[in-house]
């Protein structure tokens, strides 16, 4: 079985948010990580590899620096890494990103494609389902459990108040939830081996069957009209009072606002 896992290098917004003195986001000071949902997807692929035997290829699109997440993936146990990087691919929205990644995946053999549900920088959850549409294969989003049954996958697909157990013939694409598993750590041996493994770098010229009208900033249907750091409503009153005074204070406010 051949599994392709799509991963993204993202700024670590969890806990590590840094601000400039003027209150804007200081991205340069923030660490980058492998997107958590993608890491769960990779872990799922590695477990399928252990259970059923598989070759796991990790694909990322980004700056040359995104090589780091491929090395991390290989240190965890992935077999191959492919970095799709080219200046003409920059500024892509989800449509252009998914068109590009789908073109890269067309260069590969695959039975199963796993992506994370969403990346923590954009939070769109769009790229996985859009890749599946470009490749004309079924998609199962929000996977909380994945099993293989011959040529089929059986997946628990999560909804707000239920899950569906779904069965579909491969090839198909699955988007993974972080809840799927607890990703393993890199091992020292794995880290060492990762630098012996092959990272293939593909540029625009390596991506066939991809129209220039569908890539990069120019090929993105959505355009940014305005971007700004979030202006939050200002802080209100802050008081330090003992319990009795606090209660009187809150009661006063609740009455003033006609809550009680």
């Amino acid at each position, binding site marked *: 079985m051949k599994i392709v896992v799509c991963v993204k290098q993202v700024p670590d917004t969890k806990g590590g948010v840094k601000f400039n003195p003027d209150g804007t*986001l200081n991205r340069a000071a923030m660490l980058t990580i492998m997107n958590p949902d993608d890491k769960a997807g990779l872990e799922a692929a590695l477990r399928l590899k252990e259970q059923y035997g598989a070759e796991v290829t990790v694909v990322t699109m980004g700056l040359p620096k995104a090589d780091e997440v491929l090395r991390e993936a290989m240190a965890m146990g992935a077999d191959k890494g492919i970095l799709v990087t080219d200046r003409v691919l920059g500024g892509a929205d989800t449509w252009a990103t998914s068109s590009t990644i789908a073109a890269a995946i067309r260069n590969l053999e695959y039975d199963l494609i796993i992506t994370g549900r969403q990346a923590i920088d954009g939070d769109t959850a769009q790229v996985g389902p859009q890749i599946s549409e470009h490749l004309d294969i079924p998609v199962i989003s929000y996977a909380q459990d994945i099993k293989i049954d011959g040529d089929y996958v059986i997946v628990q697909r999560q909804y707000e108040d239920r899950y569906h157990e779904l069965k579909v013939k491969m090839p198909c694409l699955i988007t993974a939830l972080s809840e799927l598993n607890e990703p393993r750590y890199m091992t020292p041996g794995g880290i060492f081996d990762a630098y012996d493994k092959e990272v293939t770098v593909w540029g625009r010229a390596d991506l066939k069957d991809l129209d220039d009208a569908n890539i990069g900033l120019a090929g993105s249907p959505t355009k940014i009209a305005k971007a700004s750091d979030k202006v939050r409503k200002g802080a209100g009153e802050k008081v330090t009072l003992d319990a009795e005074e606090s209660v009187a204070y809150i009661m006063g406010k609740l009455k003033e*606002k006609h809550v009680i």
Partner: protein
Amino acid sequence: MGLEEYKGVFVFAQQVDNVLDGVAFELLGKGKDLAKDLNTEVTAVLIGSGVKGLADQLAEYGADKVIVVDDPELKDYRTEPYTHALASVINEYKPEIMLVGATAIGRDLGPRVSARVKTGLTADCTVLEIGDFPLNPVPGKENEQKHNQLLMTRPAFGGNTIATIACPDNRPQMATVRPGVMQKIEPIKGAKANIVEYNPGFTPDHKYVEILNIVKAVKNTENIMEAKILVSGGRGVGSAENFKILQDLADVLGGTVSCSRAVVENGWKPQDVQVGQTGKTVRPNVYFAIGISGAIQHVAGMEESDIIIAINKDEDAPIFDVADYGIVGDLNKIVPALTAALKAELG
């Protein structure tokens, strides 16, 4: 074909088990505003099996027209037949705007449909308005500025930044909107919509998945998104047992208990009462943030609350930056005393 041939605001009216989801009504409320600005109509797209009877309800919440796609293949949500249904409706009726709820269904259906009809999709929008793109004309290129565009504003980077996005050259302009963000209208009793039935034909292919089993979670009767008063606890509450004092406060006010992500991670409360970026977006009349530090991901889910009252022992907690009334103090003393005072007051 020209973009100007695309007319009208369409809303995907999500139903599960033939019950309409609240987000459908919220989208109709916003769709009505947008339609008014564009001098057009708002149309609900109702997809399912045996769902035609739900059309009147959509009319009461503002739909001028309801397009019903009814087919046995659409009984339970599956990506492919629903994508085929919605993409076919778009290709047939050519809306200029298509809104979808950012639910576990909509966040699967929206991207797949947008890829099929070749248009952009903006996820999890918090503000939708009609305006110009670019926002200001480029000097010398004034006539290239496009008017009557859907401007879609959304948070990114975990709520740290906001971006306003347009889709000037493709139609429809598609957006998903999180439940709880838009306001539904007061239903107009007896309102009727023009109902159109449409079936593009459903032939199962390799993309149709088979549903082996549907497992419903034990239903939590409390819906934090509907609550007028939320008493929300964070890590500072200290234990699952100590949520009792929050529950007592909620009970006396007729409110509901919710929580932050840390509480769910500690196993003190289930995920369906979690507020924030990875939980639910809430906008109650009063939001008590008790022992919640106020990480940006949490604030993103509750900052639209009318009144925010925060109690925290750490005077530097970021929750005080968004609270209307912040009390630096010990929640274990203040909360029970407040409950007692309210009991005395309210009888």
